């Protein structure tokens, strides 16, 4: 193994929304010595991978975009995946960062060299490692397709498709299809599938709360106004932002307003589903917000089409030709669609990360991930996470949170470079205090109100969500306080060695 000699100032891992955003802001802040390492041959991350029919965002596009890269051309309130992907591509081209992206680079591990204050990055199939003073781990929580834990999964002989790796060559016309999962992807896929397939059987374990969606096309005039007077775009974005913020009162916290959200969803169900038994099967037995809220006008009508059937019997096993359920019937079909989401990094890490003194991040996170402000982890200097532990919103745009993280980490990187630090490491006591408070706040949230969801580990630890308003999170991340960190200068001549680090009070 060899390591290239010239270290980067910043290595960004992943060319999805977060990685691209970080790169653009680094450049805007005058930090140019960076590279983005992307395992695929295209940018886009989750939006490149999720191209299933009907794929769209649950957050209005005006808000599901960066404030520093406004787009007046969104075609409708809630854009589909191809339009979002187009937006990411256009950001890459307009910002000029494309030459900095190294496609086909799958990172196999990160090892921190404490002597030099450098991260060594290894890649699959490449002998040469890359050195970087800082690393932005923007690999994303929704990057690896998650498969359900069902016996006999490997024995199925028909065609299988995961929503995050859609097979566009497969023709569903006249086919018998099964969909496993009834979450956010499923409610978008199912209405599309029932149009072509001979039959669609939807296997549901737990129903989710489904809210109606008002999706309008953006008129040409509105686009003109947004283009000519960008302030109108900011105002529209702010309006969406505050609208979503107000929803937090019912969705984030388990409060009387949660009942209001549930009432809206129940009215939606009642107005769309006439059969009482089907309605009962589709009524959740947990608080709204506990699991991700679903937004769709087409899902319930699709379930009631003649060629569609909701199956709620427990799944026993997958057999070579179909799925056996506990009422004793083997449901057979030609194609099995898994709309089962992602392997969310609540524990462990997507790639091995070895920090100071040989510590391994996955080991430290095996009971549940944690970080300081979701971005930095003590023992892993110069490493910054996007969408790290406890940064998920349940009510607002992920992009708002991501933008706050990007501002924070690019400032931290600026601090490291400006002061020529060898190490910038969050103080353990600050990190612990932050997380103790955060976990205490989480106890009053809907996510911790008793349901099982992908937000929680098997032990019920919430390593995923942020228990507050978007404004609170943004304010928490508004400024890098050097007092939260141990700052170690790079130059030994300055008289400060590895074990004689300046404390933040000097900063």
């Amino acid at each position: 193994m060899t390591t290239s000699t010239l270290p980067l100032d910043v290595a960004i891992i992943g060319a999805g929304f977060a990685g691209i955003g970080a790169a653009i802001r680094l450049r805007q802040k005058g930090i140019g010595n960076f590279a983005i390492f992307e395992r695929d041959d295209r940018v886009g991350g989750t939006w490149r991978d999720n191209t299933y029919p009907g794929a769209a965002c649950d957050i209005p596009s005006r808000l599901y975009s960066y404030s520093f890269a406004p787009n007046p051309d969104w075609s409708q309130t809630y854009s589909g995946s191809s339009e979002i992907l187009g937006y990411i591509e256009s950001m890459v081209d307009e910002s000029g960062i494309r030459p900095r992206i190294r496609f086909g680079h799958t990172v196999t591990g990160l090892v921190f060299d404490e002597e030099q204050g450098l991260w060594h990055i290894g890649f699959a199939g490449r002998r040469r490692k890359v050195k970087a003073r800082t690393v932005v781990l923007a690999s994303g929580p929704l990057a690896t397709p998650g498969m359900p834990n069902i016996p006999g999964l490997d024995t199925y002989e028909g065609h299988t498709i995961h929503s995050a790796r859609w097979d566009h060559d497969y023709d569903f016309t006249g086919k018998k299809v099964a969909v496993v999962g009834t979450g956010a992807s499923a409610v978008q896929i199912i209405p599309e599938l029932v149009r072509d397939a001979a039959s669609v059987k939807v296997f549901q374990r737990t129903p989710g709360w489904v809210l109606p969606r008002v999706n309008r096309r953006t008129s040409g005039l509105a686009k003109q106004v947004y283009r000519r007077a960008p302030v109108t775009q900011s105002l529209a974005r702010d309006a969406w932002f505050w609208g979503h913020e107000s929803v937090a009162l019912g969705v984030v916290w388990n409060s009387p307003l949660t009942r209001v959200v549930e009432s809206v969803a129940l009215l939606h169900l009642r107005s769309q589903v006439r059969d009482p038994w089907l309605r009962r099967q589709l009524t959740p037995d947990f608080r709204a917000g506990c699991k991700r809220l679903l937004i769709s006008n087409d899902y319930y009508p699709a379930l009631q089409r003649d060629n569609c059937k909701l199956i709620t019997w427990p799944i026993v096993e997958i057999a070579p030709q179909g799925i056996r359920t506990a009422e004793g019937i083997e449901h057979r079909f030609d194609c099995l669609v898994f709309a089962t989401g992602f392997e969310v990094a609540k524990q462990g890490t997507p790639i091995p990360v070895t920090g100071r003194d040989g510590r391994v991040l996955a080991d430290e996170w095996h009971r549940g991930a944690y970080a300081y402000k979701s971005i930095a982890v003590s023992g892993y200097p110069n490493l910054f996470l996007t969408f790290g532990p406890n940064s998920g919103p349940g009510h607002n745009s992920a992009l708002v949170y991501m933008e706050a993280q990007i501002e924070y980490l690019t400032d931290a990187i600026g601090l490291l470079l400006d002061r020529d630090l060898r190490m910038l490491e969050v103080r353990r006591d600050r990190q612990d205090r932050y997380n103790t408070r955060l976990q205490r706040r989480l106890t009053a949230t809907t996510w911790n109100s008793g349901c099982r969801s992908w937000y929680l580990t098997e032990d019920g630890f919430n390593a995923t969500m942020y228990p507050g308003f978007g404004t609170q999170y943004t304010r928490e991340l508004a400024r890098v306080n050097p007092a939260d960190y141990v700052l170690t200068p790079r130059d030994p001549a300055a008289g400060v060695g590895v074990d004689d680090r300046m404390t933040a009070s000097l900063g």
Partner: protein
Amino acid sequence: MAFDFDGMLGKIKARQWALADIDWDAPGAELIEPELHAKLKPFMADLMWIENVGARGFAAMAKKAPTETLREIYRYFHAEEQRHANAELALMRRWGMLDGDTIPEPNINVKLVIDFLDKHSDEMSLSFLGTVIPMLEVALDGALIKFVTDEIADPVAQEVFKKINADESRHLATDYAVMELLGHATTRKLFIDLVGGWAKPSFLVGVLSYVPLLNKMRDNIVEMGVDEEKLYSAMRRFKAVGERAPIANRVPMYRIVKMHSGWVINRGHPYHLFADAMVKVTARIPDRFLGAQPTWSKELTYEPVA
């Protein structure tokens, strides 16, 4: 020692079986003599519908269970009762008891119970559901299935009912454990549950559906030439629960159901004047007074593969 609900859930998941596991065309169907065939046909139809009714009861229990494990157990029991009904329907088909592909209509007493369960079972408390459903299971399922296994030589039926029996023994073990669990509730809660439960007019409707169903089933058994003692000995098992686990006796509803079962098995009890009259009265209820058959009771199938 406390009942291991997690262990039970693991056992339930491990012991699943499917209709496709059974060779429905295997020889043995011819062992049903024409005389037995004629009597067995309505009996099997009732049995199948009672399984379906039990399924709906467990679906209601799943909504009331205090822990996720118990909710999951009841979700399985709901499906397993449906599986029993499906398997019994498949046996009827094997024996040529179906009119083409048509699923037999439930009798009036079953229809009344279906209607009641559809409208009100989800509102009933765990202590009501948790005592009445075991009683139904012990009395009807246990006795009827015992009859079938004793009287029918068809090896396929024997295989099917062996599997059903194994499922039922897990249902009953859990039912009894839940009754014990209910017995640990405070006196205040037990009292509120009892008064609140009986104060509902809907519950009285349920009682008036349940009473004739039991006596009707007894009539059916007698009509088949079977000693009704089989039904009674099964019902005595319900009484034995309270003797084995005295804490269950704290649940007032258990005591009421137990008392009622004592009346049922005492043919000299004046209760039968009322119950038998109810059977006659309910038999005259015109179909139009019953609501539309709910969709959950239309999902039975004899096809192992869908």
